[in-house]
């Protein structure tokens, strides 16, 4: 009997490993991934990076050019997240199981959240590019729609987590819908929501780089420009600035989280 369990478990593990192996081989073939080239490229990239990909004294001349772009990207990410958060709050209150007004609103807002979350950011960038060309608004809106989908879902889960008990108590006292939202639901879920918001800002700064490369705006465009000119010293300076920005924001967020959660 005991042997059975062990053989069963071993067989299960074997099947799992075999499936992984088959999927890996299939993926390698279909993506035309050259495994050896892939892994050797790591050492080559390290050697190349060490000899070329670092900011030198000369590349510092581009700082006055890059700083406004970096500032624009950071502000764009923050503005997109903040405005998306306000709308996401409304959608999540309408969509959450515990605070919804009726079924139809709930389904509609869940649908919007799911749709916006799953439309690839590339599609947003492409479509917005056509109407807004290379304005910061293109990047702003692309980030905004993605954030709206993600934050709505995150806020909805937060509300469902904190909700129920205190909502029931306030209903029993005869409090109205808006009383309950403002006196129980929001105070209880605000810290978690702000934590999500800070996370979204970090993510959006990284995504802004991608959108920038695609649409030719912000810091992503600066990188692409120097990269395509083979000016790797300048490109590496851009990367360094992005890294510093993201890490600073992450450190600030972590400190804020420690205080509020």
């Amino acid at each position, binding site marked *: 009997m005991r042997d059975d369990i062990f053989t069963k478990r071993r067989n299960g593990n074997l099947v799992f490993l075999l499936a992984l192996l088959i999927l890996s081989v299939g993926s390698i073939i279909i993506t035309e991934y050259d495994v050896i080239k892939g892994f050797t490229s790591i050492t080559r990239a390290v050697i190349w990076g060490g000899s070329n990909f670092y900011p030198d004294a000369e590349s510092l001349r581009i700082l006055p050019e890059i700083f406004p772009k970096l500032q624009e990207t950071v502000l764009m990410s923050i503005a997109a997240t903040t405005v998306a958060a306000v709308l996401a709050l409304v959608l999540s209150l309408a969509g959450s199981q515990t605070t919804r007004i009726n079924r139809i609103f709930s389904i509609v807002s869940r649908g919007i959240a799911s749709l916006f979350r799953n439309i690839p950011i590339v599609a947003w960038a492409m479509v917005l590019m056509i109407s807004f060309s290379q304005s910061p608004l293109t990047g702003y809106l692309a980030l905004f729609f993605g954030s709206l989908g993600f934050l709505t879902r995150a806020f909805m889960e937060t509300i469902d987590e904190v909700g129920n*008990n*205190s909502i*029931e*108590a*306030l*209903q*029993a*006292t*005869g*409090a*109205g819908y*808006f*009383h309950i*939202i*403002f*006196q*129980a639901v929001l*105070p*209880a879920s*605000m*810290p978690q929501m702000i934590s999500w918001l800070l996370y979204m800002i970090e993510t959006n700064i990284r995504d802004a780089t991608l959108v920038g490369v695609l649409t030719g705006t912000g810091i992503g465009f600066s990188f692409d420009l120097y990269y395509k000119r083979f000016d790797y010293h300048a490109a590496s300076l851009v990367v360094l600035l992005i890294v510093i920005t993201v890490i600073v924001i992450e450190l600030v967020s972590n400190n804020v989280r420690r205080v509020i959660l």
Partner: protein
Amino acid sequence: MALLELKNVTKNYNNECCALDNVSFSVDKGEFVSIIGPSGAGKSTLLRCINRMVEASSGEISVDGLISSSLSKKKLRKLRTKIGMIFQHYNLVDRLTVIENVLHGRLGYKSTLAGVLGRYSQEEKSQAYRIIEILGLNEQIYKRCDQLSGGQKQRVGIARALVQNPKIILCDEPIASLDPNASKIIMDHLGNISKEMGITIIVNLHQVEVALKYSDRIIGVNRGKVVFDGAPCDLTTRQIRDIYGSESEDLIIDLGERHAG
């Protein structure tokens, strides 16, 4: 005329028979009534039908002369201000202070805007303060509720119900999550409230001994039916067996001790 009257109240969940089956009784002003019965007997449903947190399927419930099932949403809120409720898990907004949670009891009397902004009059605050003081929580008044012990949280729950100026307080397993010491404090407070303020207390209890000690009257429920309704001294071993069925074995020993003592 009785303060609370239930006539042939029946409740079915999902067309299944019967969380409550033809329940009728009436309760007078200032009475302390315990509802006892095994878990799943419908005690909680019965309590929630009184303030319509659960809608009864059929039957009539009148509170203070008003037939509650016929009330509009607005009138129902007004009725609920007259009925306080306290819960097993306290159902406080943990991140808010004691005084804020207590004042939530006033929300039913407020306009939407005043309630949303949390504007309370000096009279309301003074009243809340006096109640908190009597319940022995004046040192915790500005503490956040997540820093309180279980017994303290339940006293905040009582204060929230009292600040409503209720005629009835419904208590759903108020001491099920508390240690014996805290339980005694809570039950003593409830007893005093009914004696000194003339507020009707209806309490769901698990512990027969506690019901015997504090109640003016005991209602035994099993499978949604009222199987006993009378004074504590009339409750016999046989009737406890009726109420609790097979669960009754260890309970009867307690009762035996009471008769012996």
